[in-house]
């Protein structure tokens, strides 16, 4: 499957310890700005009941889901603690404060 690096914005577009979303043809992506300005991209749906993770509270390198408080590790996408489940993560590249994410051709709507 083909993937593209696509520039989606700057680090400063995301509030510290906050998140923004990116709409794609295959669903929404959540882009997090965690502790130490680390940027992570995950699919914006909780492994529990599809809660929008982008709306949760970001702390350390994790986010608490707004619907039922699962805590998801932003690096691995895995649920922390007793809960089980994984959110697909998306590769991120930062150059000069600009954020690029790796996206499948399908998500961009181009069929090749």
């Amino acid at each position: 499957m083909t993937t593209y690096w696509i520039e989606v914005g700057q680090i400063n577009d995301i509030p510290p310890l906050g998140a923004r979303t990116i709409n794609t043809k295959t669903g929404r992506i959540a882009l997090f700005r965690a502790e130490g300005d680390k940027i992570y991209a995950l699919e914006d749906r909780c492994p529990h009941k599809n809660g929008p993770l982008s709306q949760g509270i970001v702390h350390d390198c994790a986010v608490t889901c707004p619907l039922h408080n699962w805590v998801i590790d932003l690096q691995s996408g895995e649920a922390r603690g007793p809960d089980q489940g994984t959110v697909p993560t998306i590769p991120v590249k930062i150059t000069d404060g600009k954020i690029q994410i790796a996206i499948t051709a399908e998500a961009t709507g181009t069929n090749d």
Partner: protein
Amino acid sequence: MTQKQKLVLIGNGMAGMQAVEDILKKDSAKYDITVFGAEPHGNYNRIMLSPVLAGEQELDDIVIHSKEWYAENNITLHCGEKVTALDSTAKTLTTEKDNNFEYDKLIIATGSSPFIIPVPGKDLPGVISFRDINDVNMMRDAAKSYKNAVVIGGGLLGLEAAHGLQLNGMNVTVLHLMPTLMERQLDEAAGHLLQKELESRGINVITGADTQEIIGTDRVEAVRLKSGEEIPADLVVMAVGIRPNTELGQAAQLDVERGIVVDDHMQTSAPDVYAVGECVQHRGQCYGLVAPLYEMGRVLANNLCTDSLENYEGSITSTKLKVSGVNVFSCGEFLATEDSEDIVYRDPGLNVYKRLVIKDDILIGVVLYGDTADGPWYFQMIREQKNISDMRDMLIFGQAYATGGGQDADPFALISALPDEAEVCGCNGICKGDIVTAIQDKGLTTLAEVRSHTKASASCGSCTPQVEMILQATAGDAAVAHAIEPVCGCTTHGHDYVRQQIREQGLKSIPEVLQALRWSTPNGCGKCRPALNYYLLCQWPGEYNDDYQSRFINERAHANIQKDGTYSVVPRIWGGLTNANELRAIADVVDKFDIPTVKVTGGQRIDLLGVKKEDLTDVWADLNAAGMVSGHAYGKSLRTVKTCVGSEWCRFGTQAAMTMGIELEKLSWASWTPHKFKMAVSGCPRNCAEATIKDFGVVAVDSGWELHVGGNGGMVVRATDLLCKVETEEDVKEYCGAFMQLYREEGHYLERTAPYVERVGLDHIKAHVVENEESRKQLYQRFLISQRYAQIDPWAERARDKVHAHEFSPLAQVG
């Protein structure tokens, strides 16, 4: 039966009453006790006048012995009655009311009086000192109508006065004669740091300032210095020192020098006449801090009640400044001499300065600025004259490093390592051993119990963390389970402690709190951050910058998130009343934005469900245009005020319930609270608005309004408690605001009023909101001040002013 001996105490202040308490403890049956006090109150904690002036505590909170206490302990109290003459041969005394009394044993504990510098103008109205409740009331009153305050004296007392007056909204100038502040407790470097800190808070400090004259005709207008400079002043507080009250001793021809001279048994030169407190001079020394005075009281009690005589041998004292956010500690000799050596540590970045003075491998003095956590540990070493040569290299870094482990050292291990004789509570002279014994013997499990049995941490409170740790270490799980439920997994501290520290240390942001209270995570978690954000917001209205990222999504988006990620919108419908205009606007947005569900809520409002996040601001703009604002259906804040139709329509109604409900909602909307807060107003006891399961419920009766608190529907239903009955609508508002504020200040985050009322007890609420008018008015005032900053419609801010626009639009659209 032999008659009891008559023991008389002159001066019901901190030292004398501590002696009386110690006497009761040793032998409560031995004496018939009578107490005279010149002030019209029972004994109160004078130390805490500073926090009272600063608005951090209430006068009620600082009472040590209420008038009931005297009665319960069979002590006759004559308060507001000064003793004017004493005859130590006839063993009698005379009061200002010309009453005569006999005694068998007499204790003089008359304290001291502020020293008034003899300059012209010193008697003008507006010139006062800082010693008692009356002074604090005068300062607080002055702050209401005047602007400029001058404090003469940059010592402990003067700076606490300056800080308090500034918090009361006055422009404050401190005049200090010496080149640096608090020169008797701090060295030059620390004095400068302190000055810089106070100046950065807007307190004007003039050192080397010699007062020549206080100017004014009917009231003070300015202070003129010898340099010629004039500082405008509507209030002048003299805090240049104190002078022991020795007149009685002199009149009775006791041995008096600077103070009333006592020997090591606390006896004066006359038989059966003893003295304790600031009025005494012992081995050439007069004291002005409570710890030594309490020590004197203990020795005296022992000597009056037992056959074995104890000696008081003098005290080394330590000083802490009670200005929130400024940490200063000093003890012992701090000025270098030829044969002493200094160890100094400075970190200008963190604003930390520490200096230890050592002589012959023994620590003899310490000055700490910025980080004072190790103060008590150094103090203990100074008192023990401990040889420090084996830890000298690490000594300056404090206990954790010098005794091993560094920052990761387990605080419990440090507490366990403290010897039993180590003093934990400096104010009350309580050692670790006393606390441990009390916990073990009496099976204590809460901080409050430890305070009431030992007095540890019951005065200035700065040793609370140590006392909590001793409690945990001694009582183990029993204490933890009961006493302190931590805010979350990031900390061991409970909610009350965190709030207290925010207040006392003047912590003003979440990172500061996490740092100061040693959180175990870099930026908290989804549980503690919203709690801290609320506590900061509540403590520092108008000053604290709300931390957006520490709010739950509903409070960020100002709408309720739904299971499919869409949102619901509930406009405020004041008191449940609406009209054609509002309904039309609602109908229009439903059509325009294709909103799938419109529902009448259980709170007498209308809920628009299934709104897309991107549409929220546009929906709000349309609702705003029709005059509607956010209903905060999503917030830990005021929700609804339900009403019934009341006397406006109902044939049974006794009062105008709809009008009352709208008034209450206008008063309280947009306030943030520990958990959601709901109200209802019913027009008669049939109670159609279900007011008795609301956080604050109002039920009209013929002669006025019944006010109810602490009700809850929900999972665990609780009917309200009746708070009281009031007559006017204005009263309803005042009591409502005061109750909300008390809950705002004391409730734990996510604790509804029902469990809150059960935790603190209805009596506590009544004491602050009903019985004490002053306290109610102050609570209400604080509520109104906070509302000034809170009552901004968050929808309009976002729809019109584009606040936090990033919340409502995706960062990018791909494909």
